[in-house]
């Protein structure tokens, strides 16, 4: 039973008066604990697909397609359910890290738990949350950088913070958008190893978007995307 199913998904963006189709009936499925890599060139629609899967965007209503996570149709989620889905079920790792520059490393990692628990809930579980976050930062090798700001970190360190942030909420689905795309080969390789190791430890399923065949080769399945269509598996 797949944890994620994408069936006949279309997505069109509107630029002024012009409709720009990005995805044309994409299908894929992902078993729990497995990794699928979406391989494609720039502009092939792979990041758009990732955003749709992560609930950051909605697919076209017509032609009708569905994204099903754990038996639930993500397309039918209310705004609140989508927020909860992104917070509880999904963890994002972005190419450009997307850390909040004013927050420390530790606070950046804790952000998802703060959002999840609310003020009182977080205060009640603050110790537990901090232990989880510091544990993850220790595992990514940044226990000495807890109070540092993102601007004080290297690219590889920032991405490791982003990985810790994505995993701190124990998501069942990890979505990584070119996680090594902004790093040199050596650093990127190390970050990818770390990401895959930690994911494996948590047992999360993972969709990884990449244009690098070597990165894709680390996945259980590879879906090739070109011009918004699946062109090979």
């Amino acid at each position: 039973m797949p944890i994620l199913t994408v069936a006949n998904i279309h997505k069109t963006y509107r630029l002024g008066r012009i409709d720009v189709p990005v995805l044309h009936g994409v299908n894929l499925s992902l078993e729990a604990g497995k990794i699928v890599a979406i391989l494609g060139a720039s502009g092939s629609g792979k990041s758009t697909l990732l955003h749709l899967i992560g609930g950051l965007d909605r697919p076209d209503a017509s032609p009708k397609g569905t994204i099903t996570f754990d038996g639930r149709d993500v397309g039918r989620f209310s705004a609140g359910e989508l927020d909860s889905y992104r917070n509880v079920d999904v963890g994002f790792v972005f190419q450009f890290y997307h850390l909040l520059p004013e927050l420390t490393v530790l606070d950046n990692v804790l952000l998802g738990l703060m959002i999840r628990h609310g003020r009182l809930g977080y205060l009640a579980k603050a110790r537990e949350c901090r232990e989880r976050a510091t544990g993850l930062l220790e595992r990514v090798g940044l226990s000495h950088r807890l109070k540092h700001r993102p601007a004080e970190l290297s690219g590889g360190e920032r991405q490791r913070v982003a990985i810790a942030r994505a995993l701190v909420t124990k998501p069942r689905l990890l979505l990584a958008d070119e996680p090594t795309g902004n790093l040199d080969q050596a650093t990127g390789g190390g970050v990818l190893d770390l990401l895959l190791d930690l994911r494996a430890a948590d047992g999360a399923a993972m969709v990884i978007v990449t244009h690098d065949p070597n990165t894709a080769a680390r996945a259980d399945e590879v879906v090739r995307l070109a011009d918004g269509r699946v062109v090979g598996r």
Partner: protein
Amino acid sequence: MYQSLLTRRYLFSKVMPLLASVAVMLCSALVIVTWSVMGGFLAMLIGTGRTMIGDVSISWPNIGFPHYQDLRDRLEADPMVSATAPVIQAYGMVALPNGITRVITIRGVDGPSFARVTSFKDTLWWQAIDTPLAKDSDGRDPRYQLRDSAGFKRLRDSGLNLSRVNPDTGEEEGGVVMGIEMSGFNLREAEGFYTPKVVERRMPDGSITTVDTFLPASGRVGITVLPLDRAGNPLESLTKKLPVANEFRSGVYEIDRNIALVRLDVLQEMLRMNAGLRVREGEASAGTGAVVVDPQTGKETFVRPSEGELIKDPARVTDILIRGQGDRGTGEQAEALRRRVREIYDEFARAHPGEVPDSFDIEISTWEDNNRFMIEAVKKETALVLVLFAFMSIVAVFLVLAIFWSMISEKTKDIGILRALGASRGGIVWLWVRYGLAIGLVGGVAGLVLAYTIVWNINPIHEWMGEQLNIVIWDPRIYYFTRIPSQVDPWHAFYAVVGFVLSSAVGALLPAIRAAMLHPVKALRFE
């Protein structure tokens, strides 16, 4: 939780929110200072109004009413009444020793009873003081320097009795107690006390001589009044040179400039309101005689009436001032006293039918009624100024709005990240509104501190501006009081701060909604 964390981080990591806080601080300080000064002005006006007229007054202007001693006895027998004072209110002129003549308000008062009803005793300026004024650290105040002088000590009694001993006859003469600003001979020093001015005059032989301007020592002023007959028709004006017994300072420039107190019996005599014989009404046009015109020659002759046409006329006053028992600080308490006074007047009017004004006609008013015109005017001015300054809070709204609009553009990516991590639209709105509240709170509290500092030091600041920059904003001739009120009403300050905190939140609301409506993917891709 993340909202409070980000609010703290955003607040102190950027220059823009600090500038917004400074703007809110200046706006709120301005409103609090203005409200404090205007509110203090109003409170001083009300307080001073009461100190000069008591709590309730019975008034029958111009010709006055007789049997006032009976009315006083009835009033003072009532447990609600503490004291009463008979008063005559009239207009007249004062002729000063330097030849200047001015139109003034003259009040005939019986010193001791007037002092029981009002704060007359405390307003008498020339009396010995044991400690100099707060700002007079050198003790230059003549009242302090001459505190042991026997002559100076006598001034207080002279003032209280509105009389002065004539050095030629050795007899006590009924006199006048003028407002301290009336003569123009008293120079107000920066420390808050007065010193008699040094006035020099050129003599006929060309020499310069110094004129003694300390009127309570030996000065006299001419007081001119226009008596009326019982029908209210004017008679011949009458002028008397009266000794100046003392001077008073109420703190209200208008009063201190334009009111002179004359001993009651002296003014009654001048205005022909004293006890005596009068021509029966309808038989002569004048109160003490008649002018007969010869139809042949047209010559006017004053004819004294015969004894048979005269009636006994008791002394009259135009007002009775009443002080109530205990605390009468509120308008309601004064109103209760007014109702009781009217009941007593009803009985009095029934006891003297046809001789005193009917109880429906007589004016019985509280201190609030008597000052209503001035109080209402100041209330309206205060409201007007506050409305104008309320527009400043709208400025604060737009200021915060503009700054937040700009900041949200800068923070678009942060909003996308938060949305990707599961933050709701409501959470994003609350983040920015909370941020606006924080800016309002920081600015408002800083404004409060600034306002307190300014208001507490407003008089020294004003004096400094006058000395250094030649800017005099608070002209006592315009604003009644010689000192700027320097008290902050804590509630007014609280309302102003809350107003600006809410204004800042309102200013943040629109950008906050814009932030919440941002598409997460577009926000993440924003460069």
